[in-house]
C-alpha cells in the first residue's frame, strides 16, 4: 500500500506525462506549442461538465473531450501552423491565454470561482490512460506516419518534394496533441475534483515543454523520464526549503549544458539495441 503522499505524486506524474506527450507529438513535426494547457483546460471543463451535469461515465467523457479538443486543434492549427518557430510559439501562447480567460468568464461552470462535483478517480485509472497513450505513441513512432512527421521536422521543403503534404501532417499532429492534452485535463479535473481557470495557465504549458526537453525530445519515453524528474526533483530538494526551486533551476541549466538533447535520445536507444543484438 503506497502512502497518500506518494499516490498524489504518482497521479501528478501521470497527468504531467500526458501533457508532456501532447507537446512531444507536436514537437515531432518541428512545431513548438506553448498553449497546450489551453487544450488541457478544454478537456478538464468538458469532461467535468459531461460527468457532473450530463451524467456520462468518465471514460466516455474523456474520449468525447479528446475528440472535441482534437477538432478545436484542427481549427486552430490551420491558421496557426502558417507561422513558424518563435511566431508559432507566441500564437499558441495567445491561444492558451484565450482559453483561460474564456473559462474565467464562463459563469455556467463557475467562472473564476471554479467548478466542482466530480467523482474522484484512482491513481491506477490515471496510469491506465497515461501508460496506454505512452504505448500508443511508442508504437506510432515506428510507423510510416511518424517518419513523415520527422521528415517535415527536418526539412519541410524537401518533405514536400518527396510527395508529403506538410500542412496535413502538421495539422494532424497538432490535433492529436490537442486530444492528448484534453485527456490530461479530464484526469486532472477528476483527480483534484475541483478546477479553476488558473489551473490551466501559461506555467502549465511550460511544465509540459520542460518535461519533454528534460527527458529527451526525440523519443516518446523521454516524456516519461522528464515527467518523473519534474515532479520528484522539487520534492527531493525540499531540504533546501525556500531555495529548492532555485536549485532546481540550476540543475536544469546544468543538464541542458551537459546533455542538450535530453536524458534519452535515439542514439542511446540504438546503442542499447545493438548491445542486445550482439
Amino acid at each position, binding site marked *: 500500500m503506497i502512502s497518500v503522499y506518494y499516490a498524489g505524486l504518482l497521479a501528478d506524474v501521470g497527468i504531467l506525462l500526458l501533457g508532456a506527450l501532447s507537446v512531444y507529438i507536436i514537437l515531432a513535426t518541428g512545431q513548438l506549442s506553448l498553449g497546450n494547457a489551453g487544450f488541457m483546460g478544454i478537456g478538464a471543463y468538458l469532461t467535468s461538465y459531461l460527468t457532473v451535469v450530463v451524467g456520462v461515465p468518465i471514460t466516455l467523457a474523456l474520449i468525447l473531450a479528446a475528440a472535441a479538443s482534437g477538432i478545436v486543434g484542427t481549427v486552430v492549427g490551420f491558421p496557426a501552423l502558417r507561422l513558424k518557430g518563435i511566431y508559432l510559439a507566441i500564437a499558441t501562447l495567445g491561444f492558451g491565454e484565450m482559453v483561460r480567460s474564456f473559462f474565467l468568464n464562463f459563469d455556467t461552470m463557475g467562472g473564476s470561482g471554479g467548478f466542482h462535483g466530480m467523482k474522484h478517480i484512482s491513481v491506477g485509472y490515471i496510469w491506465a490512460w497515461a501508460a496506454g497513450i505512452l504505448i500508443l505513441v511508442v508504437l506510432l513512432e515506428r*510507423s510510416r506516419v511518424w*517518419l513523415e512527421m520527422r521528415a517535415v521536422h527536418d526539412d519541410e521543403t524537401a518533405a514536400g*518534394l518527396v510527395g508529403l503534404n506538410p500542412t496535413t501532417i502538421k495539422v494532424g499532429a497538432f490535433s492529436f496533441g490537442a486530444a492528448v492534452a484534453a485527456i490530461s485535463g479530464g484526469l486532472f479535473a477528476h483527480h483534484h475534483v475541483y478546477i479553476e481557470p488558473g489551473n490551466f495557465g501559461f506555467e502549465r504549458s511550460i511544465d509540459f515543454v520542460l518535461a519533454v526537453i528534460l527527458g529527451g525530445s526525440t523519443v516518446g519515453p523521454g516524456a516519461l523520464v522528464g515527467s518523473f524528474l519534474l515532479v520528484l526533483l522539487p520534492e527531493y530538494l525540499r531540504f533546501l526549503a525556500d531555495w529548492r526551486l532555485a536549485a532546481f533551476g540550476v540543475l536544469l541549466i546544468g543538464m541542458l549544458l551537459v546533455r542538450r538533447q535530453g536524458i534519452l535520445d535515439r542514439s542511446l536507444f540504438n546503442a542499447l539495441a545493438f548491445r542486445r543484438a550482439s
Partner: protein
Amino acid sequence: MNAAQSEALLSLRGIGKTFGGVRALSDVSIDVFPRQIVGVIGPNGAGKTSLFNVITGAYRASAGEVVLDGRAVTQEPSHRIARAGISRTFQNIRLFAGMTVWEHLIVAQPHRESQLRRLLPIRWADPQTLRRAQEVLEFFELEDVKNRLARSLPYGIQRKVEMARAVTARPKLLLLDEPVAGMNHEEADAIRRLLFRLRDSGLSILLIEHDMSFVMTLCDYLYVLDFGIMIAKGRSEEVRTNPVVLDAYLGRSA
C-alpha cells in the same frame, strides 16, 4: 511536331519566371521523352535551378505551362507534383538531418497503403515498402551504410543517398541538380553507370550539370540556357560545335 509533343513525358511550354523586375527565365520550352536523358547546361546564373524550381512547384511560373504525361501541373503544390511522378535532387544536398539512410528510402515512397496501415509499425504492416527500400539500397550499393545517419556520411555517398531517395518514389521523371558536382572522375563514372541503368529500367532523366564531359557522354539531348533564354538545343555533338554555345558557355568557362 504535334505527334512528337503529345508523346513527350514532360513538356515545358514557354516557361517564364520573374522575380520583382528581374527576369530569371523567359519563354523556355523543353521536351523530355520517355527513356531519354536530357541535359540543361549554361553558365552560372543562367536560370537552370530556377527552371527546376518551377517544374517541381517550389516556384510558381509567371508564364507558360508544365505538362507531365499530358496533364498540366503548373499551379499545383510541390507534393502533388511529386506524387504525379517527378522526383528531384538538390545542388546543395537536402537530406533529413535525423534520419538514417534506410529511413530516407522508406519515407519517400508514395503511400499506396490504407490510412490505418500508415499508423502501424512499418515492420508489421508494410512488407512491400521494405522490399522496395531493400531493392533501391542494393541498386545504389548502400547496404553498408544502411543504418547510419545520412548526414554523417561522406559527400559522394550523401549524393547517392539523395538520388536513391528520389528513385524509391518510383518517379516517371528524375530531376538531378548537378549530380556529380564535387566528385572525382571515378565517382562520376560510377554515377554515369547508375544513370544509364536507371534509364534502361524505364526512367527518364532531366539534369543540370557543369561538368561538360559528363554531360556530353551521358545525355541524348541538350538544351543550353544563358541569362534565362534558350540559346541552343540539339544532340550533344551538335551543341558541342554550335558557335553560339561556344561563345556563351564553353568559351567563357574553358
